[in-house]
């Protein structure tokens, strides 16, 4: 049995976090670590009351920093597999074993929980962005990744180590290109995601455009070449 850690980043997820952790505890026997990114709504207090396993950051530093901290934790306690699992209730714990199985049985380095392997992408603005990133990845690496922006990803030990030693790596699509270029094996596994019930996503139109520009530049001019 591999040692599996679920990294659950949470920022102002007071209303979702308990449900997420209950889902994890009821449907899996994996360890988890909540990364409370200095929430202002009392997410930390909820973790404390319920005796959840959590790390509490004193300064708000964003999702990338949160995942990197989770990776440091996984490295410190010698986990074999680390999985990003959103704290906003969109991910479902029942699909996690499929990701673990993919890494265990097929020697995959990164397994992505993908929404669109068997299902078609809906034509919303967000999915147009996703398609654009997919095609740029296809152009630069020749690999098809149908759901590059999925936030549900499982990493094996080698990848965890790279995350700890290289702080430019992020939980974003451009890092996938980096790993493809480093000859790592990346596979997608079909999962379903639900809509968020409470709270707001951090992406607004302006931020989305900024995100897209950052991703495209990073993939084309940095990750694809170096």
């Amino acid at each position, binding site marked *: 049995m591999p040692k599996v850690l679920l990294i659950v980043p949470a920022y102002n997820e007071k209303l979702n976090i308990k449900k997420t952790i209950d889902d994890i505890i009821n449907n899996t026997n994996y360890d988890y670590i909540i990364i409370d990114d200095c929430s202002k709504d009392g997410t930390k207090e909820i973790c404390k009351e319920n005796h959840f396993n959590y790390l509490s*950051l004193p300064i708000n530093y964003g999702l990338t*920093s949160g995942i990197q901290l989770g990776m440091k934790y996984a490295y410190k306690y010698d986990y074999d597999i680390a999985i990003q699992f959103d704290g906003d209730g969109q991910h479902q714990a029942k699909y996690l074993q499929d990701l673990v199985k993919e890494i265990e049985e097929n020697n995959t380095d990164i397994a992505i929980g993908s929404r669109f392997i068997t299902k078609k992408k809906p034509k919303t603005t967000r999915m147009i962005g996703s398609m654009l990133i997919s095609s740029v990845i296809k152009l630069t690496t020749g690999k098809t990744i149908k759901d590059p922006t999925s936030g549900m990803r499982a990493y094996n030990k080698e990848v965890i180590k790279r995350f700890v030693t290289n702080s430019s790596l992020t939980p974003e699509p451009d890092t996938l290109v980096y790993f493809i270029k480093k000859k790592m094996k990346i596979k997608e596994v079909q999962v379903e995601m639900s809509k968020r019930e409470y709270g707001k996503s951090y992406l607004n139109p302006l931020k989305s455009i900024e995100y897209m520009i950052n991703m495209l530049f990073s993939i084309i001019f940095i990750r694809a070449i170096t």
Partner: protein
Amino acid sequence: MSITLRIILIICSIIAFLLSIMKIKQAKLKVVNSVIWMVGAILLIFMSLFSNVVEWISSSLGFIAPVNFVFLITIIFLLIEVFTDNIRISELNEKIKNLNHYIALSEHEKRQNNLKNEGE
């Protein structure tokens, strides 16, 4: 170069020079970081005092007016400063991030140890 421009440049340089020294005394600027500003100020003063040298260089490089050459030098100087500052900010950002992580991890460890001690 016109005499007005030279006077303006000299006055600005002297102000920049004095400002650097004042900020060091107030401990708001490190000596290492102030050197570049003092060097820049001295360079500008020299360019104003020996304007015939500047005129000779700029005309042999094909500039229409010597003042363009002075501005170009200033812009290059500023761009280098901005870029190095950018790098410095990124480095600081990285250090704060690691410190942030370190605090979270050691606080977690402390909590775990307390739990263990309570259990015993």
